[in-house]
C-alpha cells in the first residue's frame, strides 16, 4: 500500500510540474499547446472536486460533531440488538444523517469507532447515499412517482441490508476494518477518550475540537477523493462513451454497460437521476435502474474512500456483492416486468 502511495505522490509531483510549466509559458505568452485531453481532464477533475469537496466537508463535520457530542454508550443503547433490525436501521439512518456518498464514509467510520456493529454500519454506508430526502426528491423530480423511483429506493435498501447482513457473520468489526479505523485515538489528543467517553469542556472547546477533527479527517479522506476523481476524469477524457453505449441493448448487456458507466462516471447521487434520463429512450429500464442503484454504492471515488476505512478484502466483497445483486435484480426486471 505504501509503495502505491509513493508512486501516487510521484504522479502528484508530475502533475504539479506540468501545471507549473503551463502556467509559466502562459504567463510569458509562449505557445506550447498541450493535447486538448489534458484540458478536458483538468476541467472534469476540478468539476468533480469542487462539487464533492463541500459534501465531504459536511461529512467530516458531522463526524467531528458525533465524536464530541455522542457518548459511546448512548449509541450502543439505541442500536438494535437483532442483526436484521440493525441492518434495517442502518439502511434507514440516511433520513437522520442526510449525507451523500462522499460524506457518508467518514461518518460511518466515526460510528464504527463509537461502537456501531458491522451489519448496521455497512448497511448505512451503502444505503444512505440513496435513502435520504435530498436524493429521493431529485429522483422524484426526474422520474415522478413511477416504478423507477420506488424500485430505486426498494432495491437500494434491500441490497444494502443484505450486504450488511452478510457482514454480520463477522462478530468482530475489527476484522473488517483497517486497524486505524477502530482505534479510539485516531487523532492526536483523542486518547483522552479512553478515560472519558465524551470530550470534556465547554461548548466552545468542544466545537473547536470537532472542527480540528473535521480538518484532520478531510486530509485523510480528501486524498482518496482526489485520486478517485483524477481516475474518473482521466477515463472520461480518453474512453469513448459512444463505443461503450453501442455495446449493449440486450437485457443483460445493457445492465453491464450501465453499471460500468456508473462506476466510471462517479457522479454524485444527488444528481445521477437527471444524468440517467439521457439513457431512458435507448436503454432498458432495468439497466437505468442498475445505474441508479449501483452508482451510489460503488464507483471509483467511493472504492478509494472505502479503502481508507475497511481492509482490502472487505472492500472487495463490498464491491462484488452489490454488483452481483444489482445484476440479478435488474436483469430479472428486464426479463419479467414489462416496464
Amino acid at each position: 500500500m505504501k509503495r502505491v502511495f509513493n508512486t501516487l505522490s510521484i504522479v502528484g509531483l508530475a502533475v504539479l510540474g506540468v501545471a507549473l510549466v503551463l502556467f509559466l509559458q502562459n504567463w510569458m505568452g509562449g505557445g506550447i499547446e498541450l493535447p486538448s485531453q489534458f484540458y478536458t481532464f483538468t476541467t472534469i477533475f476540478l468539476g468533480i472536486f469542487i462539487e464533492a469537496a463541500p459534501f465531504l466537508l459536511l461529512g467530516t463535520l458531522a463526524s467531528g460533531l458525533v465524536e464530541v457530542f455522542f457518548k459511546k454508550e448512548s449509541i450502543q443503547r439505541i442500536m438494535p440488538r437483532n442483526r436484521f433490525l440493525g441492518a434495517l436501521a442502518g439502511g434507514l439512518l440516511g433520513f437522520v444523517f442526510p449525507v451523500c456518498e462522499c460524506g457518508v464514509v467518514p461518518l460511518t467510520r466515526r460510528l464504527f469507532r463509537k461502537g456501531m456493529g458491522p451489519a448496521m454500519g455497512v448497511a448505512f454506508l451503502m444505503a444512505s447515499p440513496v435513502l435520504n430526502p435530498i436524493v429521493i426528491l431529485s429522483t422524484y423530480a426526474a422520474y415522478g412517482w413511477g416504478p423507477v423511483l420506488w424500485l430505486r429506493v426498494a432495491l437500494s435498501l434491500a441490497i444494502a441490508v443484505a450486504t450488511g447482513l452478510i457482514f454480520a457473520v463477522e462478530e468482530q468489526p475489527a476484522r473488517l476494518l483497517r486497524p486505524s479505523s477502530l482505534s479510539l485515538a485516531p487523532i492526536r489528543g483523542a486518547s483522552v477518550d479512553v478515560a472519558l467517553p465524551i470530550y470534556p469542556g465547554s461548548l466552545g472547546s468542544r466545537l473547536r475540537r470537532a472542527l480540528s477533527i473535521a480538518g484532520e479527517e478531510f486530509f485523510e479522506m480528501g486524498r482518496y477523493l482526489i485520486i478517485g476523481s483524477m481516475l474518473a476524469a482521466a477515463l472520461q477524457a480518453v474512453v469513448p462513451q459512444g463505443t461503450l453505449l453501442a455495446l449493449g441493448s440486450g437485457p443483460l448487456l445493457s445492465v453491464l454497460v450501465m453499471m460500468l458507466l456508473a462506476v466510471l462516471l462517479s457522479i454524485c447521487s444527488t444528481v445521477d437521476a437527471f444524468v440517467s434520463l439521457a439513457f431512458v429512450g435507448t436503454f432498458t429500464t432495468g439497466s437505468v435502474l442498475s445505474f441508479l442503484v449501483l452508482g451510489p454504492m460503488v464507483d471509483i471515488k467511493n472504492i478509494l474512500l472505502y479503502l481508507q476505512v475497511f481492509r482490502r478484502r472487505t472492500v472487495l466483497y463490498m464491491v462484488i456483492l452489490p454488483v452481483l445483486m444489482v445484476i440479478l435484480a435488474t436483469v430479472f426486471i428486464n426479463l419479467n416486468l414489462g416496464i
Partner: protein
Amino acid sequence: MSERTHKILQAAILFGLSAFLFYKILSGTLYFYINARFTWLVVLGGAVFLALAFFAWPRKSASDAHDHDHDDHGHAHSRSAWPLAILCIPLALGFLVPSRPLDSSALDTRGLTTNALMSIGGQTAVQLDQPSDQRNVLDWVRAFNFAADPVIYEGEPADVIGFVYQDPRLPEGQFLVGRFAVSCCAADAFAIGMIVQSDEAHHWAANQWVHVNGKVQVSHLDGVAVPLIVAESIKEVSIPPQPYLFP
C-alpha cells in the same frame, strides 16, 4: 516532518483550498466546472475550509495540552508528506492551468446526444412556452424531442449561441452548433447540438463560439429528428460567461 511543520502545512493547504474556491467564484470561471445552482455550496465549502484552516493552525494554548502526551504514540504513517502533496494537486491544477470549459474536443469521447429528456413528467411543456427566438440550443433540442411532429417548428426564427463542431456525419455545407448541458458538474456534461446550414460552413474552425441567426427546419441525424438552422448570419463571439446550459 515535525508535528508543527505538518500542522502549519495542513493549515496552509486548507487556506489554499478556500482561496481556490473563492478565486473560481470571483474570477467567474466557476461555471466552467459546475452547474450555477450549486454556487451556494461552493461558497459554503470555501467558508468551511477557511474555518478549518484557522483551527488547524498549531497553537500553544492550554487546550492543546494533551497534544504533548500523544507525541510518543507514533503516528508516523500519517505524518508523511505524500497526503499533503496529493491535496496540492487541485490547487496546482486550479491556480496554474488556464481555465477552459469543455469544448468540442471532449466530444471525441462523449459524443453528441440527440435525446435531451429532462423529465419523464409533463412539466417541460411549460418551459417550451417561450418565444422561439429566445430558445437556446437545449430548448430547441427538447422542443424537438417532445413534439409529436417537429414540423410545427419549421420556419420559426432561431437565435442561438454555441461552439462549432464539424461533425463527420454531416454533409458539406453543414456544421453543428453545440453546447454542453451540465446537471451537476463537468463530469456529467452531455453535448447537444443543432445543425447549421450555410455556404460558409467549412470556414468555421472547431471550438469557435458563434452566434447563429436563421430559420428552423427539420433535419435528421442517425434517424432522429433534429433542428436545423438555415443560417442568415453567423457571427464570431467570445465564450459566454456561462458556457454550459443548465437543464
